[in-house]
């Protein structure tokens, strides 16, 4: 888990890779389409995509003769895990406060 999170951080520590992820927010794209919108060569984009894929931020699929890259849902897991834990803690505090202040009508 720790290693996986660190890999994501490392992957996003690079400005070009962040730019690639930003482009993919617009939708799945081929290497060629990504390279046209970035000031780096096609082989460089491929190299960066490999790192993003290893970090599970990006996934790829074959479409005819080319590969299409998209954001990987696994990349969202960090946000989900964080909120999952946040709500556990927050709701426990909420429950305590509700029960502490509930007026006792009966008994």
């Amino acid at each position, binding site marked *: 888990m720790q290693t996986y999170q660190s890999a994501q951080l490392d992957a996003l520590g690079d400005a070009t890779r962040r730019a690639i992820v930003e482009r993919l927010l617009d939708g799945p794209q081929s290497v060629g389409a990504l390279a046209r919108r970035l000031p780096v060569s096609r082989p460089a984009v491929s190299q960066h995509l490999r790192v993003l894929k290893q970090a599970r931020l990006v996934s790829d699929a074959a479409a005819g003769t080319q590969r299409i890259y998209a954001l990987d849902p696994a990349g969202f897991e960090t946000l989900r895990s964080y909120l999952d834990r*946040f709500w556990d803690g927050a*709701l426990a505090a909420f429950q305590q406060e509700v029960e502490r*202040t509930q007026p006792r009508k009966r008994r």
Partner: protein
Amino acid sequence: MTPERIAHPDPTLSAPAIAPVRKTIRVHADVAHAFDVFTAGIDRWWPRSHHIGQSPMTRIIVEPHAGGRCYSEQEDGTECDWGSVLAWEPPHRVVLAWRITSQWRFEPELARSSEVEVRFTPEGDGMTRVDLEHRHLERHGPGADRMRAGVDAPGGWGSLLELFVAEAAR
């Protein structure tokens, strides 16, 4: 703004869906009291560390009507919006827009905000079931489109990923 971005303006069309976070708890309280504590009384239970201001949080507020602001007041006198009320149906249901980017900043666009729905259902014998659903998390994106500003800013909050890593390391 590139032509490509104009051609695909809605990130939610392409972002893969993520499962919502769902929580259910039962409280020894009636529905009206539970709803009241969750909303009007939010300052009494909300974790103090969870705010997006630049100085310590002194108070957190959910305005009691549809379209209302969700915001916090900070020690430095500033106010910091973090959401808005999408549905206000006391004492059974409230829906909030979670307008926090992964860089801990206010998200101006509702299309890039997730939603928190909370339902309060009487279960008899003075008990209330509270169902919380935090959904449309994919709308935030992986945080990358705002990551530049957050990660690179001196004294910035750092990314959600960093925070998570720090927590996981404990």
